[in-house]
C-alpha cells in the first residue's frame, strides 16, 4: 500500500532521475558553449588567415587562367599561360637559378655546422665568435646587397683590390656583370648573411643533445668520428631539417638581395623565379602570367618541402622517443 512515505520516496526517485538528466545535459551544453567560445576567439585570426592567405591563393590560381587587363574585363584562357611558360627561356633560366640557390643551402648548413661544433666546444671567447657570426643575420638584406655590390665592384671593389694585390688576377673581374660569376657572387652574399641563423638553430640542437650519451659512447670506446655520425647527426636531424626548410624558403624569397645586387642580370643570368614574377607583374604588366609563375613556384615549394620531410624521416625530422 502506498503511503505518504512512499510518495516522498517516489518523488525522491523522480527528482533524482531529473537531477541525473540535468547532470548529463549540463556537460553537453557546457561543452558546446566552450566550443563556441573557442571559435569566437579563433574567428578573428581565422578571418585574417582566410583574407590574406587563402583568398589570395585562390584568386591567384583563377588569375593564372585568365587574360587579365587593368582596364577591361578578364577573359578565361585556361592553361595558355602554362603552355607559354614551357617555351619561355627566362622561366627555365630563373627556375634553374632558383634550384641552384636552393642547392647552396646545404653548403651554408655544413659551414654553420662546422662553426656550431667549434663554438659549442669549450674554447675561449666562444661567445664572442658566436656573436660575430650571428651579426650578419639581423642586417637588412638591402643593406647587405648594397655593401656586397660595392665589394664586388669592378673598379673600386674590395675583392678586386685584394685579388690584384695578391697578383692572382691581372685585370679586375666584373663579378656582377659576368654571365658566369653573377649568380655565384649573389649566392656567396646570401650564404654569408644566413650563416649566423643556421648556426643558432644548429647550436640550439647541439646543446639539446644529452652529454651522457657522449660519455657512454666514450666508455664504450667510440671515436669522436663515430660519436659525430652515430650520436650528433641523428639527434640533430630536427634542427638540420628546420635549417634545410629555411634554406629552401630563402631561395624562393630572396628578392631583395638579387634585386639590389644584379636586378637579375646580366641577361637574366642571376634571375630567380621570385624576381621574374615581380618583373612579369610590374615591369611587363603581365599580372596574369606572373600569377601562373607563382602557382608553379608554390607547387615546387610544397613538393620540395614534402620531399625534404620524407628524406628527414618524416614528422619534420623528429627523433623517435626512446631511440
Amino acid at each position, binding site marked *: 500500500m502506498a503511503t505518504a512515505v512512499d510518495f516522498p520516496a517516489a518523488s525522491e526517485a523522480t527528482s533524482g532521475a531529473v537531477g541525473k538528466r540535468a547532470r548529463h545535459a549540463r556537460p553537453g551544453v557546457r561543452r558546446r558553449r*566552450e566550443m563556441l567560445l573557442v571559435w569566437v576567439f579563433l574567428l578573428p585570426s581565422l578571418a585574417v588567415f582566410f583574407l590574406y592567405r587563402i583568398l589570395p591563393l585562390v584568386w591567384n590560381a583563377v588569375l593564372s587562367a585568365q587574360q587579365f587587363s*587593368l582596364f577591361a574585363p578578364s577573359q578565361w584562357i585556361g592553361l595558355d599561360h602554362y603552355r607559354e611558360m614551357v617555351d619561355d627561356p627566362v622561366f627555365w633560366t630563373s627556375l634553374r637559378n632558383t634550384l641552384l640557390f636552393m642547392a647552396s643551402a646545404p653548403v651554408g648548413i655544413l659551414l654553420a655546422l662546422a662553426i656550431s661544433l667549434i663554438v659549442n666546444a669549450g674554447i675561449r671567447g666562444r661567445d664572442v665568435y658566436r656573436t660575430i657570426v650571428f651579426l650578419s643575420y639581423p642586417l637588412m638584406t638591402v643593406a647587405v646587397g648594397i655593401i656586397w655590390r660595392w665589394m664586388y665592384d669592378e673598379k673600386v671593389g674590395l675583392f678586386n683590390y685584394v685579388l690584384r694585390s695578391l697578383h692572382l688576377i691581372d685585370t679586375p673581374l666584373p663579378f656582377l656583370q659576368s654571365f658566369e660569376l653573377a649568380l655565384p657572387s649573389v649566392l656567396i652574399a646570401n650564404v654569408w648573411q644566413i650563416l649566423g641563423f643556421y648556426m643558432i638553430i644548429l647550436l640550439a640542437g647541439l646543446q639539446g643533445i644529452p652529454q651522457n650519451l657522449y660519455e657512454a659512447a666514450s666508455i664504450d670506446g667510440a671515436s669522436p668520428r663515430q660519436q659525430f655520425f652515430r650520436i650528433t647527426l641523428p639527434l640533430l636531424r630536427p634542427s638540420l631539417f628546420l635549417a634545410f626548410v629555411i634554406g629552401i624558403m630563402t631561395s624562393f624569397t630572396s628578392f631583395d638581395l638579387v634585386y639590389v645586387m644584379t636586378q637579375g642580370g646580366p641577361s637574366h643570368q642571376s634571375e630567380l623565379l621570385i624576381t621574374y614574377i615581380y618583373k612579369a607583374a610590374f615591369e611587363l604588366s603581365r599580372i596574369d602570367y606572373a600569377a601562373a609563375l607563382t602557382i608553379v613556384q608554390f607547387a615546387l615549394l610544397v613538393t620540395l618541402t614534402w620531399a625534404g620531410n620524407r628524406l628527414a624521416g618524416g614528422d619534420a625530422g623528429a627523433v623517435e622517443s626512446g631511440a
Partner: protein
Amino acid sequence: MALRSVRRPLRFAGRIAVLALAAMTLALAAPASAQQKKISFLTWNISDQEDLFKEWIAEFKKIRPDVDVEWLDKKGPELPAFYQTQVIAGTPPDIINTQGALWLEYAAAGGLVDLTPYLDREPAVRNRFNADYLAQWKYDGRNYMLPFYISKTLLFYNKTMFKDAGIAAPPQTFQQLLDDAAKMAKGEKTGFMTLNFDWLYWPLFRMNGVDLLTPDFKKAAFDTPEGVRVLDALAKATSNGSINKTSWTGRWVEPNGAFAGGNVGMLLAHSPAFFFIRGQAPWVNADTLGVAQAPGGWSTPNSHGLGISKGSKNPDIAWQFLKMVTSENWTEKLSARRKVLTGNVASDTKLLAQMKKDDPLAAAVLQTQVEDTDKLTGNWPLASDSRVKEAVYPEIQNAVLGRKPAAEALKDAEVKVNRVLAR
C-alpha cells in the same frame, strides 16, 4: 560556474563588436556628408619640387575652393606597381605623370582619358606646346597626355680626353664614333658609354638605318645584315675596352657616375644626365664638357607627360588642374627651378634666353633638346613596348658582353619580338 564564465566574455565581445560597427558607420558616413571634392596627382620621382607642388595646390584652391588636391610621388621603379594596385583597387590617382613609353600601355588598354576633345575645344592650350613633343603622346591619332617636362638623348663629350687623343670635333658618323672611342681607350679610360634603359641606346642602330619594326609595327625589322654589323661592332668595341661595359649593365648611377669620374670620352644620355654629372664632377665646365647631337642627329626622347586616369571620378576638374600646371606661368617656374624644358614654347624660349646669360653650358645642353625633333627614334606607339624591350635588350646584352655572336643574338631577339607582337 562554467556558464557564467562563458557568458561574460561573450557579452564583452558582443559589446566591442557593436561599438566597432558604430565607429565604422560614422567614419564612412562622414565623407559622404561633405561637399568637398578631391583629386590626386601622382608624380614620377620629383619630390625635390615639393614647394612648387604646394604652390600649385594653393593656387588651384583659389580657383576651385570646393576641391582638395593630394600630391603623391613615387620613385621610377615603384610608380608602375603602385599605379597598377591603385587601378585594381578602384582608386587610381586622377592625374598621373609617366616617363618614356609607359603611358602607351595604359592608353592602349583604355586606362587614360582621351584629351583630344579637350584640346579641340581649347586650341589655345594645344598651341602652347611644341608640336613635335605633343605628338609624342599620340596613340591611334588621339592625344593622351600633355608635356610635363621634355628630354631626349644627346652626346656629351670630355673635351680634355678629346684633345689628348687628337680628336678635333665630335663624331659625325657611327664609324667615327667607334674610331674616336678606340683612340681614347687607354688603361682605365674608355672611349664611349651609353645609357641603356627605355631604348636610349637605339640611336646607335638608327643612325645606321636599322629600325626596330616594320612600318606597320607588326614584325621585327632589325635582323638585317646592317643590324648584325652594328651589333657586332658594338660587341668588338666593348670587348676591346673602347666602349665601357657599364653601358650595358648599369642603369643611371653607374654609367653617369663613370662619365662624371672623368675617364669616359663620350656619353650618349638624355639631358637630365647633365645635372647629375655636373653635381658629381668638379671638372665639368664649358671648357671641359662638350655637347652635340649624336651622329645623324638621331635621338631617343624620354619625356615626362601628364595624363588623366580613366578611373578618375572628376576628369573635368583634373583637366582644369592640368591646364593650370602647364600654363606659361607655372611651366616657367618649373623650368627655372629644375632647369628643364617643359614643352611649353613660350616658357622654353624664355628659359633658354635666360640660361644663355646665366649658365651657357646648361643652355647648350638644353638647346639640343629642341633641335632635330624630326629625328626621334625609340618611340614606337606599341602597347607592348615593355615586353618588346624585354625581348630585345637581353639579347643585345648577350651579344655586346660576348655571350652570343651578334647574328645569333639578333635572330633570337627577332623570334621573341615577333612572338610578343603576335600575342
